């Protein structure tokens, strides 16, 4: 019986290792794919030429344009896809655990509406203080501001009742949506840009975007993983969790702020990409079980893999035109999820 348990832990490690491998291959493969006509054999060479020790061994046989495309256009976009996909999947998992609600997604407490407002204000008024990075910065600041606002409203004498949090988040999101709708209605030529941003996508993202999002997503995700077991126990209910020694109020606050951090960072660089945060945790729960100690890292990895593949489709399927990646995520993710539901009889949650 102990062997069973040890086996289980070992399985977890295997799963994570396997997913890391898949992620690695995904990144390399996706970098080789794209509408520009670059031969796949050249791609690994270009990639390895950047590694400090190996690069002497590689003979340069590609053009500057090809290198630019691989290293400056595709690779940062793919890496960003990994980060954003992982962030959204992790955020969805924690929101579902925190609210004990299978319908929860990363945007449920209104962060995305705040970020959207920031982005749209930036677009509408043509703000340019920090150049091209004004928009993501505005999105991040406004998204984060929402969480403080929601927290302030929902907090009662140091406690944070989950139901109030949910309702305040929804109310604020609705209010901000109204403002956004108004801005869109009165927008002139900016409307195009606003609509595309809202649909979510990774077009034109560069290493600067990666650098902007990476620290926040890494920090938030690491903190959440530290509290994985606490999340398991909180699923029993807040009182039982308190009885088992979890400082429930403190953990709630830490989880909420970490989640908001990673969602705000993700949304600020990629717009509002739906579906990944909601469905990835469900899929992974069916495949690896509800224990967050394995669910969180595997959701993160699968979220990254999924977004990279869907983004690859989005940028190649009717090249050179790009499709918003949110459309692809829903189109492919939903049927797969339904298939899983039918073949596995385990309960959804």
């Amino acid at each position, binding site marked *: *019986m*102990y062997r069973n*348990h040890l086996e289980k*832990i070992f399985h977890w490690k295997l799963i994570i290792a396997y997913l890391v491998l898949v992620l690695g291959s995904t990144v390399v493969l996706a970098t080789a794919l794209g509408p520009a006509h670059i031969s796949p054999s050249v791609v690994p060479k270009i990639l390895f030429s950047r590694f400090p020790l190996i690069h002497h061994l590689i003979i340069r046989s590609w053009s500057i344009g090809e290198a630019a495309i691989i290293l400056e256009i595709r690779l940062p976009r793919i890496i960003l896809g990994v980060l954003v996909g992982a962030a959204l999947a992790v955020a969805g998992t924690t929101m579902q655990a925190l609210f*004990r609600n299978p319908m929860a997604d990363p945007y449920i407490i209104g962060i995305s509406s705040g970020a959207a407002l920031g982005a749209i204000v930036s677009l509408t008024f043509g703000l340019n203080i920090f150049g091209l990075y004004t928009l993501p910065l505005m999105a991040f600041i406004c998204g984060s501001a929402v969480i403080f606002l929601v927290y302030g409203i929902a907090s009662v004498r140091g406690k944070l009742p989950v139901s109030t949090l949910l309702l305040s988040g929804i109310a604020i999101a609705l209010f901000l949506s109204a403002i956004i709708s108004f801005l869109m209605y009165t927008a002139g030529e900016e409307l195009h840009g606003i609509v595309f941003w809202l649909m979510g996508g990774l077009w034109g993202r560069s290493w600067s975007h990666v650098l902007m999002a990476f620290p926040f997503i890494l920090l938030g995700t690491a903190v959440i993983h*530290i509290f994985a*077991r606490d999340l*398991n*126990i909180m*699923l*029993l*209910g807040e*009182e*039982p969790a*308190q*009885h*088992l*020694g*979890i*400082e429930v109020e403190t953990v709630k606050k830490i989880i909420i702020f970490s989640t908001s951090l990673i969602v705000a960072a993700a949304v600020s660089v990629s717009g509002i990409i739906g579906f990944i945060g909601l469905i990835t945790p469900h899929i992974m*729960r069916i495949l690896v*079980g*509800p*224990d967050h*100690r394995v669910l969180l890292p595997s959701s993160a990895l699968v979220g990254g893999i999924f977004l990279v593949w869907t983004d690859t489709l989005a940028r190649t399927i009717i090249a050179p035109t790009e499709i918003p990646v949110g459309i692809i995520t829903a189109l492919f993710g939903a049927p797969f999820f339904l298939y899983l539901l039918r073949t596995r009889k*385990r*309960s959804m*949650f």
Partner: protein
Amino acid sequence: MQRVSLRIDNIACRYETANVLENISFSATAGDFVGVIGPNASGKSTLLKSISKILRPHTGVVFLNQRDIYTLKSAEVAKKLAVVPQKSAISFAFTALEVVLMGRAPHLGRFEIEDREDLLIAKRSMELTNTWHLRERSIDTLSGGEEQRVIIARALAQEPRVLLLDEPTGHLDINHQIEILDLIKRLNKEWEMVVIAIFHDLNVASQYCDRLILLFEGKIFAAGTADDVLTRENIEKVYGIKVIVKEDDVSGKLLIHPQRKNAVRPTKGKVHIVAGCGSAVSLVSRLVEEGYNVSLGVLNVGDSDYIAAKALGLDVVEEKPFSRITQESHQKNLEFIKEANYVILTNIPIGFGNIKNLEAAGQAQTLITIEKESIEERDYTKGEATKLYRQLRANATIVADSHSVLERLKSVESRARS
């Protein structure tokens, strides 16, 4: 190891501005099994919450091993104190073993994973609650009772010194109820735990608890042993019902019998029963159900028939316990007999104490007498009773048991109607 002690020192709790608990003080040490009883909204759950660090009292202190629990970390407290709630609403797919293993969390560091010892402890807890065979089942597929036992196993996996339970046997079948309570009682002694449990069933509380705390409107109304707390006066004042309290024949613990109001209105005639020693218990309730206006006499207070009759709110001509029937009560008895349509004499032993009952029965107009044994076998008056009996027997209808009495009455009724 130091014996665990729990001391609640004059705590008071409130929600918003309403005081839910006031002036609560008591203590418990290893091996104590304390029952918390009281009507709804008397503060029982609140008391448990304040002891388990969920609801902080605004005055007073809760000491666990002489330390204020509100200065301790929750994990520290959880190593010593476990709570079994009234019901759980777990709606996700953890296995029963995984749920029980969560009970080991207080003992594990943040990055530690459960090891062999944790698993052994979980196994032992599940075997104690007879849930080990459910270990790989998903918790949301278990029945209410099975789930409750798994939760109890989880609490036991914490290796607590103090165990708090809120109505621990609510969803359980009677066999599991007894099994669990017996288990908790046993562990209470073996593991030298403090057990504090909320009970809604006073009789169960009386059976298992060493001490009781009766709460009423947020204050301690009575505290102490069952004898001290479970008195007719206390129960009437707190619960508002009249009861009979007697010692249970089997366990020797106190049993509460609530006096029920007659559900059936008497529509048929008056029946007076001369009885005693529990010979009329079933007859009485069936006659009442049939709609007869039943009275009894003369019975000694404390006699089983007396208790049964009082429980049904019937008129009883009573005599002091263990006393001979006096002239007074004999007269009263005769009055009832005169008023009655039917008089029934049950299969009672006759001694000098109650021979007057036989005399009274002889005065009945319509007498039915139940004869399970012959009068000689029941005569403790050296023949006097037999003589009297033979006389009244001549005018009486003789039946073999209570059932026949009813049949007789029914046929008399129908004849009377036709």
